[in-house]
């Protein structure tokens, strides 16, 4: 029953990254290989999506070791969807990097590192074993450590040291939580953990470990513990920051959703209420940050925090509508945040400053850029018919259904603040007069606009064509609401014989 297709999204970037290290001096080849790799990952994700739609959750027992004993890769609808969106976002970010990242960074392994990052991200989405999830986190983080400091400017070095330290400490906490889990339950396979927690009951000790895991994942997802995010995400160049903002925090969100829907779902009143409170606080603080700053980079990074809070607000409600909204919004947020970072990077590239008060009248020079920024701002704040809208509706409905009225209200209120913060950027950057007369429509700007155009088209398409992906999102939600679908697929008959 093993399906070898599942390994492809992990192994394609690793192999192509290794090949690129060998042919270090051929940056042209690097570009071709990295784009090819992301296209192949996307194709394998599409194949996986179709297989999961037709015949349920797909499993790969690595090395032929069956479920609770070996490492299992599991592709359910949620994982496959995220892998697919990751491929799209990476494709656009790498394309954007062609004309923005600079020859120096290209020669110093920018493309291989990005692909290793993607290998870690895809691995975290596809693994069915919590220790393997730790390893994939580390693969992703080590690549991100190098990417964030690549170039070695002063600000990058300072931020990267903070970033590495915080992530090292959170990795230790993750290991501690894993050790406790193994000591109490004797297994690390997520499906098997779920079975054993259900058997033993989720007592106080188990809930304490659940909270330890929540702290770890919150640090990665920037849920409430986001103090490191605004600094580190504004240090690297736009293409790298876009990948970070779109993908890294989403891995933390995925881990929270996976662990708290599959394993620790017995104490909804405690764990999920805390997730809801953390989500509310990060929405409020993130929105305040995005309103308060007058710097494009800061505004966009604080918007990442608001998005994280909103996705997990839907998840915390633990209702069908809320989960549907979370998944819609998760997909939307990956696209929209990458789009915002790339747009912000382009504006800074043109004006040479990130300060809103020093720029104006860009719409005369760059009308396409201006309109795309307008669409992106509407999309981020959830205005119909763009992609953020449907997720926002479902999340609000879900929180109201579960009686978390305050959570839904905070979500709606903060989206107004988000709208204000992005409109602030739009108005001060694009409206008004400008002294710059000549239109600098050179080749490099066009190279920056094309990937942005693709992402803008996707965010419009996701809003208008939400019906198309509805079937997939429904299947993903069904898998989250009923852990048995996941467990039965992973453990199959291996444990039924001798009583789970």
């Amino acid at each position, binding site marked *: 029953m093993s399906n070898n297709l599942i390994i492809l999204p992990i192994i394609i970037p690793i192999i192509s990254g290794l090949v690129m290290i060998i042919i270090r001096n051929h940056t042209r080849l690097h570009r071709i290989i990295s784009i090819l790799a992301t296209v192949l990952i996307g194709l394998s994700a599409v194949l996986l999506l179709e297989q999961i739609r037709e015949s349920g959750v797909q499993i790969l027992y690595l090395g032929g070791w069956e479920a609770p004993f070996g490492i299992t890769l599991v592709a359910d609808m949620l994982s496959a969807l995220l892998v697919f969106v990751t491929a799209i976002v990476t494709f656009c970010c790498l394309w954007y990097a062609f004309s923005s990242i600079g020859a120096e960074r290209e020669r110093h392994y920018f493309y291989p590192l990005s692909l290793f990052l993607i290998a870690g991200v895809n691995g975290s989405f596809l693994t069915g074993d919590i*220790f393997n999830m730790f*390893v994939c986190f*580390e693969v992703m*983080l*080590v690549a991100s*450590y*190098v990417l964030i*400091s690549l170039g*070695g400017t*002063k*600000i990058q*070095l*300072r931020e*990267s*040291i903070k970033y*590495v*330290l915080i992530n*090292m*400490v959170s*990795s*230790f906490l993750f*290991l*501690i939580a*894993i*050790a*406790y889990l*193994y*000591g109490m339950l004797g297994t*690390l396979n997520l499906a098997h953990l779920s079975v054993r927690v259900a058997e033993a009951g989720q007592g106080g000790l188990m809930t304490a470990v659940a909270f330890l895991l929540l702290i770890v994942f919150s640090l990665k997802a920037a849920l409430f513990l986001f103090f490191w995010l605004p600094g580190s995400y504004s240090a690297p160049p736009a293409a790298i920051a876009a990948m970070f903002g779109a993908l890294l925090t989403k891995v933390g969100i995925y881990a929270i959703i996976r662990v708290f829907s599959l394993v620790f779902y017995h104490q909804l009143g405690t764990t999920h209420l805390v997730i809801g409170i953390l989500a509310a606080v990060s929405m409020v603080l993130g929105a305040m940050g995005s309103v308060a700053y007058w710097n494009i980079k800061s505004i966009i990074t604080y918007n990442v925090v608001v998005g994280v809070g909103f996705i997990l607000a839907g998840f915390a409600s633990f209702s069908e509508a809320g989960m549907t909204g979370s998944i819609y919004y998760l997909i939307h947020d990956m696209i929209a945040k990458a789009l915002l970072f790339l747009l912000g990077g382009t504006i800074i590239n043109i004006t040479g400053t990130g300060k809103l008060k020093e720029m104006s009248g860009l719409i005369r020079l760059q009308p396409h850029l201006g309109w795309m920024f307008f669409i992106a701002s509407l999309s981020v704040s959830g205005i119909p018919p763009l992609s953020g809208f449907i997720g926002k509706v479902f999340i609000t409905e879900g929180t109201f259904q579960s009686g978390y009225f305050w959570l839904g209200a905070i979500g709606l209120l903060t989206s107004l603040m988000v709208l204000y913060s992005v409109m602030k950027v739009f108005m001060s950057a694009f409206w008004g007069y400008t002294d710059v007369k000549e239109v600098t429509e050179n080749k490099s700007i066009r190279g920056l606009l094309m990937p942005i155009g693709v992402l803008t088209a996707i965010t419009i398409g996701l809003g208008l064509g939400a019906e198309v992906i509805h079937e997939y999102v429904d299947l993903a939600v069904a898998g989250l609401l009923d852990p048995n679908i996941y467990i039965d697929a992973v453990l199959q008959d291996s444990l039924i014989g001798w009583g789970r």
Partner: protein
Amino acid sequence: METYMSIVIGVLFTIGTYLILSKTFLRIILGTSIIGHGVNLLMLTMGGLKKGGAPLLGFNESSLNDPLPQALLLTAIVINFATTALLLVLSYRAYKVLGTDDSEQLRDHVQQLKDSDDEQ
């Protein structure tokens, strides 16, 4: 035996936390690596300390040791080794570029950078 181990782990965590809270890069890095050792010992202890023989066929032991924590440990050690090496290189580079290895001075330094940025 487990009790002694927990005391050792506690001591390692204490020292590590103390070092991480200090100012210079090198002490902070030493702190993380000491906490790393504490975490590794914790993992070994949580898996159960030595109870029997090696889990190999043909040894005919009556009770076997659990090999999984050791396998996990090995992975964790390798990852910890790699990240510590990276952090050391990074902090050396930061020391050379920024001219300080004191996190407090670093903050002042950055404040100056920001101020001069604002003036421009």
